[in-house]
């Protein structure tokens, strides 16, 4: 059976650790390796950071996180949605080291890390409406 859950939380930096830990805990049913759990935690952290730092900038908005396991594939899909400013140029945002906030020592590696640490990544976004980042991690074990 495929299992799923959803949660909503405010885009407060303090919630990042909670969000990635919850997703990591949910993935345990797929018997991931330590490295796979860390990959997932890192990728989730990047997407949540984007909501906190970029989507809602100096305000606080809602972040929705939904997870679904795929028993047949032993995989998990995580979608992270905000209703913030949106991304004007997704292709540009995906480039390694690209950041709209270089003054804040942003590394510009967020999407690159999600892409590298998971198996699939999709971004949908519209200006002033928000962004959804969907990532899929296949747990291969050992």
């Amino acid at each position, binding site marked *: 059976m495929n299992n799923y859950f959803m949660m909503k939380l405010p885009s407060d*930096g*303090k919630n*990042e*650790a909670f969000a*990635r830990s919850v997703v990591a805990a949910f993935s345990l049913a797929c018997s991931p390796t330590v*490295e796979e759990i*860390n*990959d997932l*935690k*890192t990728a989730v*952290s*990047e997407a949540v*950071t984007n909501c*906190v*730092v970029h989507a809602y900038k100096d305000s606080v908005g809602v972040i929705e996180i939904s997870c679904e396991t795929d028993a047949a594939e032993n995989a998990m899909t995580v979608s992270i949605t905000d209703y913030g400013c949106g991304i004007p140029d997704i292709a540009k945002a995906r480039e390694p080291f690209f950041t709209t906030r270089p003054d*804040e*020592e*942003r*590394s*510009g*590696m*967020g999407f*690159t*890390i999600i892409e*590298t*640490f998971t198996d699939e990544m999709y971004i949908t976004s519209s200006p002033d409406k928000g962004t959804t980042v969907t990532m899929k991690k296949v747990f291969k074990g050992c």
Partner: protein
Amino acid sequence: MNLDFKIDGGDICVKLVGELDEYRARTLRPDVDKLIDSHGIKSMTFDMKSVTFIDSTGLGFVLGRYKKLRQKKAELLLKNVPPQVDKVFRTSGIYSFVPIVE
């Protein structure tokens, strides 16, 4: 949070602890920068042994310290890098200009 560091002449070793994300980097930055601004710094080593997690914000923090040290003609070194941190560092290519020491 108190910063755990050792000063040996111009060489400062800082022991970083816990999860280096957006939340932690924000509070860590001014404390570490105060050390970098101390007189006659030659090198700063980040001992990563007790870092349990890092993301691109933590990476940005490390890169930012590298740039600040370079302006002072001082170098940044890394030590005891755990696997999760190592994977993020390798993805970024940081090792081509910030070496690991024993």
